[in-house]
């Protein structure tokens, strides 16, 4: 739909609605006027120094930007030959990168005179961030969350409620992120006059992919500056996990036009792509339209969406942002799946070697980067990988405890065997149902 020829040189600041043959607005007509209003407001705001100043002030004084770039020597040494640096989005207020986009869109919502924010959430990180922004700005907030996810991320449900948001569990479909988006869209069609749909990733109809990227591009810009000042050179590769793809797009954006920097996106491989139980839409490579964008989509022969599977609620989405589809198609970025098992091994390794508990989403990026480092062999000595640590893992401790069987009374416990021997017999509390393996 747009000519790709001139884009071989320049990927940065690519505007919608199309990214190559991907993107667009595959949406009910009822929402087009609202999307036009969002786009118009976004373009005006980007050009308004007062808006930029307010966004920067919030990013600094509320989020805590810039986030750190931390070299992880013990983790890197155990992983392979390369050096590794973590972009510490986990240290942002609310514990993930999601707050960047949320603050930006909440400001836009105010600018449009909207008084109510709605959002979808998978892991709960985006919902928590949206509830936070709504509390900060005195707006009403409703968060849609698949009921399977409300169970595996119960703590985040409580956080959102503490922040004054209404959390609506979505019981139909697969009861995960995609169904939460469907329900948020149904709400928005009926409420668009006073409501902004604060979409949490670089997916959805134009202008969301471009706009959400814009609010997150600070991640890549900071990382680029930080590595240049620390090491005097660009990294050899940057790595991020990809569900919808917002943290990855934010990091990639800083390096898109540095051809010497390889870009790696790691999708949720679940039980393995060959099992069909995964969330690796790009790896599968079937184009389709869902939730307003043409992109890669997990679908059956008839075009029905196939349920995705991942230990990580935040990556459990059957499609991906259209700009990632474009970067994959053009070869600028490489996308690979990481299984639940690989992810959890890296999750544990970062905890043990660095004293940092990552979000399970981000642990996919750690595992992918470790694999990349190993794949380089001796040639990897001295190479640098920047990994986006997109969120902290407090919300995932229960899931990890179940995975590693760390709780009292879990007798098959390979990690805490001595504990079990000593305490297991009289351990009073059985492991809680987390639904992780369900």
């Amino acid at each position: 739909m747009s000519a790709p020829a001139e884009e071989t040189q320049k990927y940065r600041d690519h505007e919608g609605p199309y990214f190559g043959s991907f993107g667009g607005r595959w949406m009910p007509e009822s929402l087009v006027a609202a999307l036009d209003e969002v786009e118009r407001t976004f373009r005006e705001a980007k050009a308004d120094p007062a808006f930029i100043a307010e966004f920067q002030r919030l990013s600094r004084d509320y989020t805590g930007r810039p986030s750190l770039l931390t070299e992880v020597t013990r983790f890197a040494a155990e992983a392979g030959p390369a050096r590794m640096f973590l972009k510490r989005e986990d240290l942002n207020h609310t514990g993930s990168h999601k707050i960047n986009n949320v603050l930006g869109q909440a400001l836009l919502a105010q600018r449009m005179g909207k008084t109510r924010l709605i959002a979808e959430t998978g892991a709960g990180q985006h919902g928590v961030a949206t509830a936070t922004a709504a509390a900060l700005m005195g707006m009403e907030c409703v968060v849609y969350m698949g009921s399977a996810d409300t169970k595996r991320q119960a703590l985040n449900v409580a956080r959102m409620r503490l922040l004054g948001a209404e959390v609506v569990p979505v019981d139909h479909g697969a009861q995960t992120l995609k169904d939460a988006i469907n329900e948020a869209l149904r709400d928005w069609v009926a409420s668009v006059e006073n409501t902004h749909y604060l979409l949490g990733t670089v997916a959805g109809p134009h202008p969301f992919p471009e706009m959400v990227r814009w609010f997150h591009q600070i991640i890549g810009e900071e990382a680029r500056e930080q590595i240049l000042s620390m090491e005097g050179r660009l990294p050899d590769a940057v790595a991020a996990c990809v569900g919808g793809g917002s943290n990855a797009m934010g990091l990639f954006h800083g390096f898109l036009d540095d051809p010497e920097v390889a870009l790696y996106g790691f999708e949720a491989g679940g039980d393995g792509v060959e099992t069909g139980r995964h969330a690796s839409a790009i790896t599968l490579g079937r184009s389709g339209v869902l939730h307003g964008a043409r992109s890669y989509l997990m679908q059956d022969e008839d075009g029905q969406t196939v349920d995705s599977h991942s230990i990580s609620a935040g990556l459990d989405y059957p499609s991906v942002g259209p700009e990632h589809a474009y970067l994959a198609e053009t070869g600028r970025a490489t996308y690979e799946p990481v299984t639940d098992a690989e992810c959890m091994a890296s999750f544990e390794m970062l905890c043990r070697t660095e004293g940092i508990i990552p979000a399970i989403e981000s642990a996919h990026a750690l595992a992918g980067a470790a694999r990349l480092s190993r794949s380089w062999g001796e040639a990897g000595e001295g190479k640098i990988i920047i990994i986006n640590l997109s969120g902290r893992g407090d919300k995932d401790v229960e899931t990890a405890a179940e995975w590693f069987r760390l709780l009292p009374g879990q007798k098959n416990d390979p990690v805490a065997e001595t504990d079990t021997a000593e305490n297991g017999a009289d351990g009073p509390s059985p492991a809680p149902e987390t639904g992780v393996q369900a």
Partner: protein
Amino acid sequence: MSTTTAADKHPATSASKTARAIEAARSQGRAAFVGYLPAGYPDKATSIAAAIELARNGADVIEIGVPYSDPVMDGPVIQQATTEVLARGFRLPEVFEIVEAVVEATDAAVLVMTYYNLIDRMGAEEFASRLAAAGGAGAITPDLIPDEAGEWIAATDRHGLDRVFLTAPSSSPERVEKIVAASRGFVYGVSVMGVTGARDQVSDAAERVVAAAKSAGAERVCVGLGVSTRSHVEEIGRYADGVIVGTALVTALRDGGPSAVAALTAELTGAGASR
């Protein structure tokens, strides 16, 4: 992308089956009645029988809804019905078989209503070809706007199918023009900002939606979303060319089978006394 086609310049009253059905109602001094039922609900045979009852009791146009995994424009009743159909292993070709059976048994114009990814996956050309071969009149595509419809417009042109786009209370005059120009058969006026589902009152936005489409040159505008009673039908029939009922009919089918669909359709169309 050009949305102006030969068919728009020569309003295809004769080529468009849907237009013919609506014009026939108009010549009887009434608005057309458009009834929606989901394909394969609760099973294939019953869904065919129910659609035939629609036509026997006064429906001029029949919409066969294609079950889809992510129906963002549908409320709980239709969602629940189509989810059940998918859960029993429904496959897309069944739609064409149902359309063919209903076309054979009735005089109604039979359209499918489908979310676009189902067309996209099969390929617009293949979908249009199979729909035309089944005798279908065309398709309503609730999540497709003319801006993205290049392939679908070309395919429906090649196969002489109607393509119905939606216009909403929120649509700007420029968009209404684009929608009217791209549509064939009729334009679907969304009566209210919301999803499908029975409502107590018809929104007063509906009349404005129809007027906007007419002033943009639409020859036939049918109104849907929330229509569930005879008085709604009469009210909308005063200013629109057709009245679309979905959820109320699906509820009737769910609770009382094809005979309940027959009774409700007769009541809604006012055909109960005369036919």
